[in-house]
């Protein structure tokens, strides 16, 4: 590596120990804004994700008002929403815009960027024993591309014609023709530009995560000794790398259709009795391209939380994770399957029914690796010495929500049943439990668990318990009744349903759901308060408050640039040596050699002494 050409190597920490010595004073901007430190970038993603989560949550509260109290007038919203509330009534197009932006924000900006952006950045170098990401500069670019995408998406909310309103899946022709809905004008253009930048951000980040995991593991850290979090983040990044470029292609073709007069997705269409010039396009083609990203995307959302939850459950049950290799195998299986099931979102699109039955078969296979994971989590909890920290409660609740939402996935995976349920609240209930609530619970578990390492202070537990119980109870209060609504045929995406005699009897149930939703929304401010207060005023944390085995807990309380003050730690064992018989303590960190644990070594481990 001796080289005169420093510029090419400056941004690569090649795993050499000679980097941490050259500490130089960083300016405020270098340290906190255009930082190349993975820990700071992780926190930037976390704060941005929280900001977007508040916006997305606010939007859902607004449209829940309309659904729960269709006859009421909301004059108190007029000062905030201006002309979108007309005489106390939500504008119907604004309602559609709210639903669209709620989906876009939650799926992409919170549960993709906010979740894997935060934890992949923060944990990958710390848990594999690296000084930083493979390329700190690209990592920084990844955040700032996301920031730019956020600014554009945020700005589009304030457009006079409103933000994109054709659903988060932006199906053409609705999204392609400004004549169709006012949100398909400038709002949709900004949506596409913002998403293109977002994809660039995800690719820059994902390339970094994969390279770091493959190339920068510390000595002794083989792939079979990685914490499950790292496996999860690694596979998430692989899914993103393969799926996001396809969305980029689809978005590019949609841009051409909208602005350059091509007809990739637009067939012969009449608007107001007049034929458009477009001819010969295929709207189903867009759905294929979109869902080729869209289905892996739901695993991009849920896989990181698989890893986080496995780690938190093993640590707080004081037991080795049950079936470590089965956990990795099931994640690999889910990742591969996620690419060959996309058309189960399109059973009602008019696609060939034979194709539908193939996709149905593949979809149902996903139940197998998912069930393996659930079984392993439950077996890890079984007869464990459980510490119910807030992170643990959120993790156990994650398993509960994942089961509840997953079971309805088997129902919807059947094309015959899906055709019946597709446009009802049953689908809404299914995916909000399994990828919405569950992913949020995993994210909360991660924040509560790694808060001490992020900020050097403990987050308040009592407020954490209050936050947990309200959120957990309300998640079920909101989404359980929705299954019932859906089976009864109650249609989703409708702005107003009081005109239908059949659905009027569900007024009470809708009001109930709305009250629960508003209540849980306000309960999140307990968390926001706790989060901000604890950053500044929380109890000071110790180096390893949860008595955990992974490498991040061997760093100082506030790890500096380069993470470890001395040489990098060396890894001797897997990360799940909890409650090992014969050991003096109930945990043995990964960097403790077998020669120091002779009392607890198993027969085959004596060779390593």
């Amino acid at each position: 590596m001796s080289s005169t050409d420093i510029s090419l190597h400056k941004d690569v920490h090649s795993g050499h120990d000679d980097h941490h010595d050259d500490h130089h004073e960083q300016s405020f901007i270098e340290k906190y804004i255009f930082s190349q430190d993975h820990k700071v970038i992780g926190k930037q993603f976390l704060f941005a994700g929280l900001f977007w989560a508040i916006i997305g949550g606010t939007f859902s509260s607004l449209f829940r008002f309309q659904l729960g109290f269709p006859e009421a007038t909301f004059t108190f919203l007029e000062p905030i929403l201006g002309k979108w509330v007309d005489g106390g009534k939500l504008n119907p197009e604004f309602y559609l815009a709210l639903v669209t932006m709620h989906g876009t924000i939650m799926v992409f900006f919170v549960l993709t960027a906010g979740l894997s952006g935060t934890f992949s950045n923060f944990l990958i170098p710390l848990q594999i024993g690296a000084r930083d990401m493979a390329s700190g500069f690209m990592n920084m670019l990844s955040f700032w591309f996301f920031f730019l995408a956020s600014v554009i998406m945020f700005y589009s909310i304030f457009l006079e014609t409103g933000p994109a309103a054709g659903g988060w899946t932006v199906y053409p022709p609705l999204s392609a023709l400004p004549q169709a809905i006012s949100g398909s004008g400038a709002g949709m253009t900004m949506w596409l530009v913002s998403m293109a930048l977002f994809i660039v951000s995800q690719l820059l980040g994902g390339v970094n995560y994969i390279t770091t995991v493959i190339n920068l593991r510390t000595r002794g850290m083989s792939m079979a000794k990685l914490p499950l979090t790292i496996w999860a983040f690694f596979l998430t990044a692989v899914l993103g790398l393969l799926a996001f470029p396809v969305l980029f292609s689809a978005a590019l073709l949609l841009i051409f259709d909208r602005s350059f007069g091509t007809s990739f997705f637009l067939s012969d269409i009449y608007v107001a009795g007049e034929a458009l010039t477009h001819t010969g396009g295929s709207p189903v083609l867009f759905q294929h391209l979109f869902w080729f990203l869209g289905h892996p995307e739901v695993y991009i959302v849920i896989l990181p939380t698989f890893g986080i939850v496995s780690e938190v459950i093993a640590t707080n049950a004081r037991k080795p994770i049950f079936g470590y290799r089965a956990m990795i195998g099931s994640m690999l299986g889910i990742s591969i399957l996620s690419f060959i099931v996309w058309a189960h979102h399109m059973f009602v699109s008019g696609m060939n029914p034979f194709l539908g039955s193939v996709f149905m078969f593949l979809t149902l296979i996903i139940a197998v690796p998912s069930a393996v994971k659930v079984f392993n989590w439950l077996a890890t909890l079984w007869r464990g010495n459980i510490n119910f920290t807030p992170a643990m409660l959120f993790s156990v609740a994650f398993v509960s929500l994942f089961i509840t939402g997953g079971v309805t996935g088997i129902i919807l995976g059947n094309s015959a049943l899906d055709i019946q349920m597709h446009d009802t609240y049953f689908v809404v209930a299914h995916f909000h439990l399994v990828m919405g609530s569950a992913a949020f619970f995993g994210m909360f578990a991660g924040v509560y668990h790694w808060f001490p390492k992020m900020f050097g202070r403990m987050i308040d537990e009592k407020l954490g318990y209050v936050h947990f119980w309200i959120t957990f109870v309300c998640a079920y209060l909101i989404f359980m009744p929705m299954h019932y609504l859906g089976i009864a045929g109650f249609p989703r995406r409708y702005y107003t349903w009081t005109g239908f005699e059949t659905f009027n009897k569900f007024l009470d149930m809708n009001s109930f759901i709305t009250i629960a939703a508003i209540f849980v929304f306000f309960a999140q401010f307990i968390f926001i308060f706790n989060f901000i207060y604890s950053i500044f005023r929380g109890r000071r944390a110790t180096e390893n408050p949860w008595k955990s085995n992974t490498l991040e807990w061997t760093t100082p309380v506030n790890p500096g640039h380069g993470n470890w003050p001395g040489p990098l730690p060396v890894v001797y064992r897997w990360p799940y040596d909890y409650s090992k018989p014969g050991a003096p303590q109930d945990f043995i960190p990964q960097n403790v050699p077998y020669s120091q644990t002779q009392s607890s070594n198993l027969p085959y481990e004596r060779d390593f002494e």
Partner: protein
Amino acid sequence: MNPLIFMLWLLIVSIVMMFAAFTSAYIVRREEGNWLEFDLPSVLLVNSIVLILSSVFMQWAYSSAKADNIKNVKLALVLTIVAGVAFLIGQWAGWGELVKNNVFFGGSTSNPSGSFLYVLTGVHAFHLITGLIFLIIVVISALKYKVHSRNLTRIKLCTIYWHFLGALWIYLYVFLVLNH
């Protein structure tokens, strides 16, 4: 493996996925009918040969750098750039030929079959321009004597990327010939 080279391969994977999406969309759309059949511009074959030639120059530059023959490195890199620019000019001429034959990108008389050809060549040309920018950076560092046998990473990255862009074009060309 050097992390930078590994990263480049990952970026190549993402570009491959993009074109996989375009070409599979092409096939799916073609199967649905209402598809304008037209002759590919004849200049595309010439362009393909020019691009293969540029890859040969690129490989020459890389092996010259390995042998510390700095003069040849510069010459070969400049030749690669010239061939790359000639390819782009040729592609532009191809578009001109299409327009002359009334195959348009957009508008009321356009058909997806023509639009797809413009998109495939256009997005490839965009990536080729990024490759040219990379080449210019390597030329500048070669002028500063920073490309030699003990400092190969940069020119190796550039060589991999350039060969990939060539291979991508050959794939697209063969794909278009077979599906026309």
